């Protein structure tokens, strides 16, 4: 039992870091550029597909990952230049609708190129095994690697945003765009870079998700809604909030799906738990969000205004 709880907690952590990679990009774009980007899930999907295609083409996993990331970065920058630039001055409603249109486009484009059926994505052979954490507890090496990559990216992101010149410009652009532009910074280019960077983070989450979940059109929207929950819980514009929110949501969701049914079975009759368990488990993170909002409408780590 302990081993199972431990394993499920690690699974929760693994989902959490993937949610974080998505949420960090989305919250940066939202906090800095003030853009609601529903198509963030599409970039996740694009990352997954490009990596699968590049892996098959080159035969090398690392090369596939590099090409997938670069491709997603480029796609993200193109989206920013072609569509989002026209929307900076608009309200959130217009941004929601335009990026909704982008989702339809990307899902269908992927279906045209690769078909509607799920693609089989494999991880590299050198991550195929298990690791033994303690006696009797084996954990898939691939999932462990995701956790490590996610945490490394989190540290890098913190370093870039708080300790480098680029991060300083990003923070300055978030608090006063006009002033930064007046000081001679090319804010347009900065925005394009930030968006491309956020796209690459989403692509990274997508390509790592490939071997675990299905690579298929619409895969991005499944995770996107969970990412919204993460951002609402963590507070918009806050990378720290995104990290905490993502880990909480990842663990609560995973443990809920694994243990809510047996747990309910001890309280109410097992047949009732059989039907109530999964229903409650799938609603758990939304109930959590409602609870957080009831006490802190601005999320756990509200960022400064703007």
């Amino acid at each position: 039992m302990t081993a199972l709880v431990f394993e499920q907690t690690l699974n929760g952590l693994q989902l959490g870091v993937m949610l974080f990679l998505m949420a960090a990009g989305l919250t940066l774009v939202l906090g800095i550029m003030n853009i609601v980007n529903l198509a963030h899930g599409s970039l996740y999907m694009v990352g997954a597909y490009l990596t699968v295609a590049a892996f098959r083409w080159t035969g090398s996993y690392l090369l596939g990952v590099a090409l997938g990331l670069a491709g997603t970065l480029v796609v993200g920058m193109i989206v920013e230049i072609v569509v989002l630039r026209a929307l900076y001055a608009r309200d959130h409603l217009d941004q929601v609708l335009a990026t909704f249109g982008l989702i339809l486009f990307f899902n269908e484009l992927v279906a045209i190129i690769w078909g509607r059926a799920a693609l089989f994505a494999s991880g590299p052979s050198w991550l195929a095994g298990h690791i033994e954490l303690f006696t009797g507890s084996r954990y898939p090496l691939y999932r462990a690697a995701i956790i490590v990559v996610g945490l490394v990216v989190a540290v890098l992101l913190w370093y870039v945003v708080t300790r480098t010149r680029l991060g300083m410009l990003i923070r300055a652009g978030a608090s006063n765009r006009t002033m930064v532009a007046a000081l001679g910074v090319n804010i347009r280019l900065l925005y394009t870079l930030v968006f491309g960077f956020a796209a690459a983070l989403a692509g990274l989450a997508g390509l790592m998700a490939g071997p675990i979940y299905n690579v298929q059109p619409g895969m991005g929207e499944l995770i996107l809604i969970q990412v919204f929950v993460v951002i609402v819980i963590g507070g918009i514009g806050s990378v720290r909030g995104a990290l905490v929110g993502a880990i909480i949501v990842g663990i609560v969701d995973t443990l809920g799906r694994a243990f809510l049914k047996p747990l309910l079975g001890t309280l109410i009759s097992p047949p009732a738990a059989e039907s109530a368990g999964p229903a409650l488990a799938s609603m758990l993170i939304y109930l959590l969000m409602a609870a957080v909002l009831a006490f802190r409408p601005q999320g756990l780590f509200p960022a400064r205004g703007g």
Partner: protein
Amino acid sequence: MKRLIGWVVGVALLIAVPPLMLALGQPFYVDLVRRIMILAIAAVSLNLILGYGGMVSFGHAAYIGIGAYAVGVLGFYGVFSGWLHFLVAIAASAVVALAIGAVSIRTSGVYFIMITLAFTQMLYYLGISVAEFGGDDGMRLKRRSAFPLLDLNDPVQFYYLVLALMLVAVYLTYRIVNSRFGMVLRATRSNEARSRAIGFSPYPYRLVAFVIAGAMCGLAGALYGNHTNYITPGLMSWQQSGDIMFMVILGGMASTAGPVLGAFVLLLLEDLLSGWTEHWQVILGPLLVLSVIFFRRGLAGIFYKPDA
């Protein structure tokens, strides 16, 4: 006066659809226009909170689902009274809207968009996980809602019922918006600080509008369930919410005719494109993007200046 003429011509055209299409041997179009008018009711209800109230709800499909499930679940337990179906659909939607609204309206801006979306997604997953009512696959209605003197299995009678209810929804919304309540609602949208300063706290007004919109959309859901004769959680999907939202924006926010116009244009366009290619969304997506960028006041803006 010009608007009145527009309405008379429009309604006359809609009344003429069934005899005309049946004479031409195209009953499919009676079904299509009926579906469009049902979703137009949903769009009209969303316009009340989105257009006039300034609340960007990205979860309006929830009430379509609740209304449809009210019909399906009551039928599942052998209750077929149409009055009861519609009453439960409206009441259940109002209650859910009250619960969702009470939490969501405490927030604003992006939070509001994401929260309404998340709550609808929650209901969507609830629909998927309740195996008794078909789960992911959905369930077929045992029978359509039964009314005295009216047979919903007759496509033409059903068509005229939907047309009448759509006109009622439009008129009701028009009356609400131009009442004292509606003026306060519009004031809270155009300047929240000022409406507070003259003594109107926005929260209760927004919440009541949210509940009215939910109830009205629940009616559309009950009609939609009867229309498709089949109920799936997909009715509550976020794409459905996005579609309804697009109808409102495309037609013109805060205008009486806008949502109806938007519903017709969007769904006829979908029908046209999907008859043309299986991959019609790859065309529709960019069209939506372009319409947002270049078409700021919606279709109604071409004909007249939107109210408010």
